[in-house]
């Protein structure tokens, strides 16, 4: 069944979009990520203009992270103070990212920068996750106990000034790395059209030693606030949010996320991290392939002023 999308200006198969929402929602629920890094390329692939895809995906991520955040809220697994600190720097990062986005677009190099960012970030993060998860798997296989104490609980980041205590996460760290992480997530999110959950979770674990109990819930609150405000900002400034597309994605997304979360709970965390690592790595390789392989057509068109 075809449905015409008013802002994207093209008809799409409603079941295809619903299915994409379900699939990405399932993955996002399973791994506790927003899923923007999968949804944005998928929408572009079915012909949605990239700008509309980025803007509409924001509301889809807001919906699925809202479901997730509420679940974690009931389990008291959210560190609001940490989320707000990350957010304050995240807004500055987003603004910087939007500024660079506009500039690169004018120079016709936006596609290249997005492509390279996806390749570098996704292959690096994916590779690290696979490596870490495989080691954990091997340790488990040899029958060694999992390291209960997080290794190297104190690194140089803990020596920085402006220390703050985050009670819910039971950490005492400097505000500087917290701001740094918030800024880079906001910056990367604005340029790549992603929520950044898959980057934020490992960063919080490895750099700030945030315990696994609060990390996903906190990341979801951050994603929820940034994506909800991104929806409003995109709608108010560029008029690019396609409400019909967003609604179909949301409905599929929240249902998929529930089943994903259910499946995720039944799996071992190492296995889950390995799978997420492989997924992230695969998407990165897919982008690398696109950059290196000669395109079907060396020429491409970009709309400067619409009719």
């Amino acid at each position, binding site marked *: 069944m*075809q*449905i*015409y999308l*008013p*802002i994207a*200006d*093209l*008809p799409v198969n409603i079941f295809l979009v619903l299915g994409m929402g379900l699939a990405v929602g399932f993955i996002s629920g399973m791994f506790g990520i927003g899923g923007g890094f999968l949804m944005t390329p998928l929408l572009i692939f079915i012909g949605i203009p990239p700008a509309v895809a980025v803007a509409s995906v924001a*509301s*889809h991520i*807001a*919906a*699925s*992270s*809202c*479901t997730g*955040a*509420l*679940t974690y809220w*009931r389990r008291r697994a959210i560190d609001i103070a940490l989320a707000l600190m990350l957010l304050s720097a995240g807004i500055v990062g987003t603004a910087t990212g939007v500024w660079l986005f506009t500039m690169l677009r004018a120079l*016709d*190099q936006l*596609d*290249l920068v997005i492509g*390279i960012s996806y390749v570098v970030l996704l292959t690096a993060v994916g590779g690290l996750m696979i490596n870490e998860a495989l080691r954990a798997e091997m340790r488990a296989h040899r029958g060694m106990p999992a390291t209960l104490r997080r290794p190297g609980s104190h690194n140089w980041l803990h020596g920085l000034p402006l220390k703050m205590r985050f009670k819910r996460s039971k950490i005492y760290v400097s505000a500087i790395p917290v701001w740094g992480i918030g800024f880079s997530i906001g910056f990367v999110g604005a340029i790549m059209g992603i929520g950044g959950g898959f980057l934020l979770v490992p960063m919080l674990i490895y750099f700030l030693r945030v315990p696994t109990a609060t990390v996903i819930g906190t990341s979801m609150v951050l994603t929820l606030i940034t994506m*909800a405000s991104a*929806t*409003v*900002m*995109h*709608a*108010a*400034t560029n*008029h690019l*949010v*396609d*409400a*019909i597309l*967003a*609604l179909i994605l*949301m*409905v599929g997304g*929240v249902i998929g*996320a*529930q089943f994903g979360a259910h499946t995720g709970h039944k799996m071992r965390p190492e296995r889950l991290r390995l799978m997420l690592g492989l997924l992230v790595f695969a998407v990165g390789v897919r982008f690398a392939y696109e*950059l*290196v392989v*000669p*395109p079907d*057509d*060396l*020429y*491409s*068109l*970009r*709309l*400067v*002023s*619409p*009719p």
Partner: protein
Amino acid sequence: MIARAAIVLALALTASAARAERLVVSLSNARIAVTSNYVGEDLVLFGTVQPDVGKELKDAYDLVVTVTGPSETLRARRKERVLGIFVNIDAREFVRVPSYLAVLTDRPVAQIAGPQVLRRQQVGMDSFILTQRVGADFADTVTDDPFRKAFIRLKEQQHLYSQSATAVTFLTPTVFRASIPVPADAATGRFDVDVKLFAQGAMVGRTATSFAVTKAGVEQYVVEASQNHGLLYGLATMTAALAIGWLASVAFRRD
């Protein structure tokens, strides 16, 4: 000055030509409504050739229907391999060109008239003026310019530019019909239909009509809301997102 003289001359020519044969045309639909189940539409143009008083009809006519959609400005970019990866290294802007262009004829344009007539009357894809910004100048290039060719090729792949030598059929020597394909992703706005009649390689008649592609129903409501009340629209979308997220978490609650 020369350009203005040429325009005046062209107008004089069309005026004198229009006196010989009269064209009467009608479209099957003057307005295409884009609703939620819109997947594109084919319009039909009907028409007849009528002689002016005291004139005889010629034996064979050719018809050229040129349909142009709302104009837009596009940038064509060319990639090249730099250090192993493909990078946009050159770009050309096409200024205020039609977003949709269809050239419909009863036989190949080259057989209808000579190259000079085709160029002067802008008949056929190759003769259609596509203004490019080259540095500070605005001009069309030669037809085999790589950017121009690439631009037309890309637009043809999107089914937005087309040229068909079979789209016009003469039902009798003076009654014709032409089918105009409007793809689903054609822009909304006014589409101009320019109808030119040729006989023995010269233009003998001309008329014009137009149709509109407009959004209707929910589609129109959504577009208007997003354009005129962007902030409210954004807040509504955000509220919907939060509401759907909350509903799902309540509906699937297991604890």
